[in-house]
C-alpha cells in the first residue's frame, strides 16, 4: 500500500477519495433501457448505486419500462449486460406475466440480432437465452397494503444478503398504498423519508440500482393546476435521478428532471410489442392512423 494511501485511511475511516470514485464510476456498467436515446440522456442507462424515480400519467409506459429494466438487467455479461437478477415489488397488481414473457422474447431476439457471430460460435451460451430463464431471474413480491410495503423494504436487506446477484430493485409504484389509506400526512412524510433512506443505503451497499415508479397528481401552482409527481416536495429529495414520462403531441417523451451529474434533457421513445425502444424503430404493423 502506498504511503499516502495509508495516510488517507488513517485520516478518515470509510471515506473514498474523489479520484477513486471516478475510476469506479467509469468501470460501472449501466442497465440499458432498451432505447438508445433514453440511455443517452441518462448517461448510458440506469446507474447502479443510485435511486431513480420514474413518473408519468396513466398509460404512458411506466410499468413497461419497469418490466423492461427487470429483463435487461439479466442480459449476460458476454452480451454487454450485467448478468444480474431483479426484484420487482408490485403494489398495483399491474405486473402481467404474459407481457414479461413477450418483452423477454423481444430482448433475446435483439441480442441475437446484435451478436450474430457470438450466437453461432457458442451453442452452449445459447442455452442461457430462454425467456423462461429471464423470468426465473425476477423475484416478485405482491404488496397489498402500505404495512407490507414497509415490511418488504425492511426485509430487503436480509433477502439481498441471500441473493447477492440482484442488481436492480423496482417498486411499481411507490405511491399507490400511501395515497390510498394513510390518513396522517405528517406521519406519512416521516415514514416515507425513512423508507427512502433505507433504499438509498441498500443501493449503495449492495451495488444495485433502485427504480421507483411514481404516479402523477395535480398541484396548484402559480394560478393554475399543473401535473406533478405524487407524494409531495420532501419526497422529491429522496431520489438521485428523476425521469418524467409525458406526451408531446403524438410522441412519448422522457424528460430528465433531476440528476446530480447530467444536464436536463428530453428525448422521444416508443413502446413497441418488443418493449421500450427508440422512437423511430417502432414496427409499423398497423399503418392506418386516425
Amino acid at each position, binding site marked *: 500500500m502506498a504511503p499516502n494511501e495509508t495516510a488517507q485511511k488513517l485520516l478518515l475511516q470509510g471515506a473514498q477519495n474523489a479520484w477513486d470514485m471516478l475510476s469506479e464510476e467509469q468501470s460501472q456498467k449501466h442497465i440499458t433501457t432498451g432505447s438508445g436515446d433514453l440511455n443517452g440522456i441518462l448517461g448510458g442507462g440506469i446507474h447502479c448505486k443510485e435511486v431513480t424515480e420514474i413518473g408519468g400519467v396513466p398509460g404512458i409506459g411506466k410499468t413497461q419500462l419497469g418490466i423492461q429494466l427487470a429483463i435487461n438487467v439479466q442480459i449476460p455479461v458476454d452480451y454487454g449486460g450485467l448478468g444480474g437478477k431483479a426484484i420487482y415489488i408490485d403494489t398495483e397488481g399491474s405486473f402481467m406475466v404474459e407481457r414479461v414473457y413477450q418483452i423477454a422474447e423481444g430482448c433475446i431476439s435483439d441480442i441475437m440480432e446484435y451478436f450474430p457471430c457470438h450466437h453461432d460460435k457458442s451453442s452452449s451460451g445459447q442455452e442461457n437465452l430462454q425467456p423462461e430463464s429471464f423470468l426465473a431471474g425476477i423475484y416478485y413480491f*405482491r404488496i397489498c397494503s402500505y404495512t*407490507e410495503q414497509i*415490511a418488504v423494504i*425492511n426485509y430487503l436487506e436480509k433477502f439481498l444478503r441471500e441473493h447477492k446477484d440482484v442488481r436492480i430493485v423496482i417498486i411499481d409504484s411507490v405511491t399507490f398504498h400511501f395515497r390510498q389509506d394513510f390518513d396522517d400526512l405528517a*406521519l406519512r412524510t416521516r415514514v416515507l423519508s425513512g423508507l427512502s433512506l433505507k433504499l438509498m443505503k441498500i443501493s449503495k451497499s449492495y451495488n444495485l440500482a433502485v427504480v421507483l415508479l411514481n404516479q402523477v397528481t395535480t398541484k396548484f401552482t402559480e394560478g393554475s*393546476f399543473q401535473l406533478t409527481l405524487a407524494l409531495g416536495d420532501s419526497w422529491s429529495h429522496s431520489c438521485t435521478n428523476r425521469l418524467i414520462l409525458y406526451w408531446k*403531441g403524438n410522441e412519448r417523451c422522457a424528460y430528465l428532471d433531476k440528476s446530480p451529474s447530467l444536464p436536463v434533457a428530453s428525448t422521444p421513445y416508443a413502446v413497441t410489442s418488443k418493449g421500450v425502444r427508440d422512437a423511430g424503430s417502432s414496427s409499423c404493423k398497423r399503418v392506418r392512423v386516425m
Partner: protein
Amino acid sequence: MANKLVSDMCLPPHLAHLLAARRLTTAKDVLSLPEVELMSLLDAGLATARDAVCHVSEFACPPCQTALALLDERVRLGGGGRLATTLCGLDEALGGGIPLGKLTEVVGPSGIGKTQFCLKLALLATLPECYGGLNGRVVYIDTESKFSSRRMIEICQKSFPQIFRQEGLAQKMAGRILVMRPASLSDFTKSLEQMKVTLLQNDVKLLIVDSVAAFMSSENERGTTGFTQHPLRWALSFLKSIAELTRIPVVVSNQVRSQSNDDGYHYSFEVKRMGDGDGAERLESHLVAALGIQWAHAVTIRLVFESHSGQRFIKVAKSPMSPAVAFPFIVESSGITLLNDEGIDVSGPEITSIRCQGQNLLGLLPLEN
C-alpha cells in the same frame, strides 16, 4: 398480512413482551411508526427498536415468487384466464378478453353503450364453459338503476340465437345474475364489505359495478389545500384486492365530466416552454373521466367509449399488453357490434382522450362544475 398479530410471530420473548406492553398488537402498529417514535414509545435503545422492526418486517413481508413460478401458476390455472367479450377484434387486442384477477374500467359519455357492454358481459359470464362463458354467478352492482333484464336477454338472444334456442336457458342464466342497488355511498361500501365472503362461497365469476362514479359528484372536490381520504379510495383498493383474491374479473364503468379549465394538463417544465400555446389544446379535449387521475393509475385496463366524426369507437386506452387501437362500433338490438375487427391505430395521447359529438349527448352530460 398487515393485520398479522405480533403475538403470532414467535418473536424473541423480550421483544414480544415489550411490544405487548406498549399495545403494539399488529404489524401495522409497529411498522407505521418512524424509528425514533418507536424508540421513545418502547423506551428502548435504537438497537432494540431496529431489532423489533426487523423481526416484524420479516413476518409481515409477503412471500416472494419468481416470475417464472407466476407464469407456471397462470398456465396451471387455465391459460391466463380471460372472459371473452365476443367482440373478436377487441378480444384479440386484449389477448383473449377481459383478464381474470384484474380491474378493468369502461369509461365514456352517457348513452354511448357502457351499460350495453356490461349487460352482455354479465350474461356471457354465466354461460357454460363450452360457450365461452365462466359458468358461474355474477354480482352486478347497479348504482344508477339502469340494469334491464329484458334488454340483457334481448341482447343475448339476438347475438347467440343458436344457444338460446334451448328451452329455459335464458331463465337459468338470468337467474345467476344477482343485481344489487345500493342507494348511497355508505350502502355501497357496506355491500362491498359483505361481498368478500359471498364471492368466495357462491361461485361468483364476475363482479360488475355500473357505475362507480355515481356517488362521486360531491366527493370529487379537489381542494387546493391538501386532500381528504374519501371512501371511494378505499373502494378502489378493495375492488382490486377482491379481483386478485378471488381471481375473477372486476369490471367497473365510469362516467365523464367536462374538463374544467383548471385541470392539470401539463408539467411545469412543459408550460414554461410552450407559453400560452396550450389554450387551443385544452379546448380540444372536452371530457375527462369523472374519477380523477389517481383512479386512472389504479385500473389495469381502461376501455374508452367515445364518439366523433359521426362514429362511435371503443379504444384500448390502457393495457399492459395491447397496442393503442380503436374499434368503430354500433349499438343494435344484439348489443355492441364492431364494424371491423382490424381496428385503427391511434398514435399519441389521443388514445386516452374522450370525445363526444352531437348536441343531444352534450345536454345529458353530468356537468358538475
